[in-house]
């Protein structure tokens, strides 16, 4: 039970280990002072602030942030301490100049498990730049919290002086200096973004990520201090679930909700939608977003991966049962045949029939169970598919017609569909995490994927480039303008007609590079970029990149490999495949492996490092749990649809608006 305090009100504290959560509409400095029974602060040792963030029993954060968590252990405080005042102040460096200009700060005293004990909203502040928000005080051996809300127009110095600190002015200066230092430290080279900052910078972090097969929460649930310069709310603000509106977002326009306006009903608001109660004896009706996650996108992503795993395992159970039934039938038939008593008369036939009947019965049972599971998953897919955001949606999903350029990088991208022969009714969206962790290889070779209808190599190559264009266009569309750059190398110009949608809409960084010289130039530029970013990261100075450095993700589409490649270019390509993903440079090869057979095993690591996709359905992708071969269906634009052109036109318009 939370006590919502008004100014002056107090509330007993039953616990001694507490957290004080502060949220404000703008980065604020949070600190605390400890005082004796007369309320006087003994000296600068009695002030916890960003410069000296911890003292026995008390810890504050080092930086100005819109959200803070102060840790207090009342038992660990010295006996002489009778009062702890929590103070907030606006940083001198930048930002609003008075509390009256920002949303009322909110302070909550919580237990370590997050349960709120008391909360207080500091309303009615005007020209003040520092305020004592709440104080914890000892009264007859027990601790209480009181809502204070005493503001000071003269700022921190006046506030500290009022608490009896002689060195108030100097200390206030030190605090502001420490905060200014913290702000400078926490602003990295790329332009500050909203709550997705954490995710979008992940590729820059050294070391590989979990890999696409490991679904996991998108962002840390607890705001980390180093990100303190931005708003530190949990990353829910982008989701459709936010009910509070976006007042805490620094960007002027807030996130753009690019979902279809009339599909609201399919995306229920937070908390995560639970399946409605079902009639007894029936499985619960599935609901879109019925999974864990901070935002609807993350919940849908986790739900899709949950469906993927469930289907993989249900089919594994079925296949295992069928295998067992077959081996048992073989064994029983063999036994019947080898039994000498059966040699005469119809004994062996009867035994064989019995064995077959047992086999059929077990297979039928297994099929029944599988059908039950598949029906449930198909029903779930039916509600999930229409609720998907553009990045996860098929090209024929109406969400693409209502496409608007996003403000945020989505969690994942749909590359196609996956299904298994036993479960025709269900296809699972194949979602990979963004930014990409591996490059892509669109296989234009004839190995397996193509049957005789695509005997003409030129037709195959054209289809492969078209598929690549659909993937690249999707990436361009789901990244915010200016955050994704596509380069194309098409040495012989063979893919010109298929690449036309990208080139015509002017969404490429430059026209497709032609010839050996163009290829070499493109590769050299990207190789230098990888070197530069790696150097900056290894040197621990990501903000030392040259001013105006384009921090967007880069995708290089290479068509018709190895035409136009010399040994040096091949080496550069391998270098990009190995080192690029961790610094935001990705490869998309459209190639027939056999055409580069002349290089021998030299290129094997290259092919292995790429995720192989096909322009036509092909069963070559394994799931991470039981390793079934799933049939991959590429995400291609339906024939005759204008959706790709419409979307690219909007992307191009947004990029021009972005100053490109």
């Amino acid at each position: 039970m939370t006590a919502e305090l008004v100014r002056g009100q107090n509330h007993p504290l039953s616990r001694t280990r507490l957290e004080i959560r502060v949220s404000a509409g703008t980065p604020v400095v949070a600190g605390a002072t400890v005082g004796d029974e007369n309320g006087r602060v003994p000296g600068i040792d009695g002030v916890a602030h960003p410069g000296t963030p911890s003292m026995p029993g008390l810890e504050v954060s080092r930086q100005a942030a819109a959200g803070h968590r102060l840790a207090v252990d009342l038992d660990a405080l010295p006996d002489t301490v009778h009062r702890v005042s929590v103070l907030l102040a606006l940083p001198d460096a930048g930002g609003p100049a008075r509390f009256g200009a920002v949303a009322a700060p909110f302070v909550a005293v919580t237990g370590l498990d997050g349960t709120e004990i008391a909360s207080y909203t500091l309303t009615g502040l005007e020209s003040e730049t520092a305020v004592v928000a709440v104080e914890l005080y000892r009264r007859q051996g027990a601790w209480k919290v009181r809502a204070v809300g005493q503001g000071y127009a003269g700022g921190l110095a006046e506030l500290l002086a009022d608490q009896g600190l002689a060195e108030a002015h100097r200390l206030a200066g030190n605090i502001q200096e420490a905060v200014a230092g913290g702000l400078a430290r926490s602003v990295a080279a790329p332009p500050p973004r909203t709550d997705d900052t954490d995710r979008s910078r992940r590729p820059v972090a050294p070391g590989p990520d979990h890999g696409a097969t490991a679904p996991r929460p998108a962002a840390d649930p607890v705001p980390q201090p180093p990100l303190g310069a931005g708003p530190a709310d949990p990353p829910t603000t982008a989701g459709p679930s936010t009910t509070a509106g976006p007042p805490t977002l620094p960007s002027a326009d807030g996130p753009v909700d690019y979902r279809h306006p009339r599909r609201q009903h399919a995306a229920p608001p937070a908390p995560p939608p639970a399946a409605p109660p079902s009639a007894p004896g029936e499985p619960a009706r599935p609901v879109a977003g019925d999974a864990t996650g901070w935002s609807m996108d993350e919940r849908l992503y986790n739900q899709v991966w949950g469906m993927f795993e469930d289907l993989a395992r249900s089919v594994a159970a079925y296949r295992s049962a069928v295998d067992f039934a077959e081996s048992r039938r073989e064994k029983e038939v063999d036994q019947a045949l080898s039994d000498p008593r059966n040699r005469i008369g119809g004994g062996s036939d009867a035994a064989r029939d019995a064995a077959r009947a047992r086999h059929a019965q077990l297979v039928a049972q297994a099929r029944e169970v599988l059908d039950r599971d598949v029906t449930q998953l198909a029903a779930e897919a039916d509600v999930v598919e229409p609720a998907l955001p553009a990045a996860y949606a098929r090209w024929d999903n109406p969400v693409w017609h209502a496409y608007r350029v996003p403000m945020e990088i989505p969690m994942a991208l749909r590359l196609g569909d996956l299904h298994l022969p036993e479960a025709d009714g269900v296809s699972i969206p194949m979602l990979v995490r963004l930014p990409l962790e591996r490059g892509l290889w669109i296989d234009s070779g004839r190995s397996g994927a193509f049957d005789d209808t695509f005997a003409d190599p030129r037709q195959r190559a054209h289809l492969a480039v078209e598929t690549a264009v659909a993937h690249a266009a999707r990436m361009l569309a789901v990244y915010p303008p200016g955050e994704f750059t596509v380069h194309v190398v098409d040495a012989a110009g063979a893919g010109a007609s298929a690449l036309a949608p990208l080139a015509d809409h002017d969404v490429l960084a430059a026209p497709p590079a032609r010839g050996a010289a163009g290829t070499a130039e493109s590769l050299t530029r990207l190789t230098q970029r990888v070197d530069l970013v790696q150097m900056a990261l290894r040197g621990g100075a990501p903000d030392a990149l040259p001013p105006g450095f384009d921090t967007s993700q880069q995708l290089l589409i290479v068509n018709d490999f190895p035409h136009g490649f010399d040994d040096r270019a091949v080496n550069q390509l391998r270098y990009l495949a190995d080192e690029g993903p961790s610094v935001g440079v990705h490869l998309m090869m459209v190639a027939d492996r056999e055409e580069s057979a002349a290089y021998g095993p030299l290129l094997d690591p290259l092919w292995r490092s790429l995720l192989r996709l096909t322009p036509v359905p092909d069963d070559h992708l394994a799931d991470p749990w039981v390793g079934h071969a799933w049939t991959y269906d590429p995400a291609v634009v339906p024939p005759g649809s204008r959706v790709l052109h419409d979307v690219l036109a909007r992307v191009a318009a947004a990029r021009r608006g972005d100053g490109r």
Partner: protein
Amino acid sequence: MTKGQAISLQKSDGGSLTSVRMGLGWQAAPRRGLFGSRTREIDLDASAVLFADKQPVDVVFFRHLVSDDGSVRHTGDNLVGGVGQGGDDESILVDLQRVPVHIDQIVFTVNSFTGQTFQEVQNAFCRLVDETNGQELARYTLAGGGPVTAQIMAKVHRAGQGWSMTALGTPANGRTFQDLMPAILPVL
């Protein structure tokens, strides 16, 4: 319940049990005398072997935490045991509705991976719990048991439309479930 006794997991109201959990808990034995605070780590492991007609089909243990069909899940290996709070340090969850149709018996075992016998382990127990209502179906105290390093604890097997459980409590020796296979086969 006693060794060899079978209980039906069919509920009295006709509904059958849908989910059971095997829990295993223990505490490392402290040394006596000087440096007594240095305990020797004891690693017990819980495993479940899935049988179809006496043929092992799948096994769930610390290197394979989920059966391929997803019906049996190990919650994760614990290498050192608990602090003696009496809680389960390792758990294996079985969703009986999802067990493939050809699987007719699931055998639960406990092994001492670090080789100590159950005489040296403190507060060790294993139990089988009905996950739907938290009711304990069977419980064995392993600690102070004989000089053995493994136990075949119980089996859950198909009976008619539902499942029933038989407590086994057979002592055995072995480091992992593979070593126990000869001991398991007679109890199937």
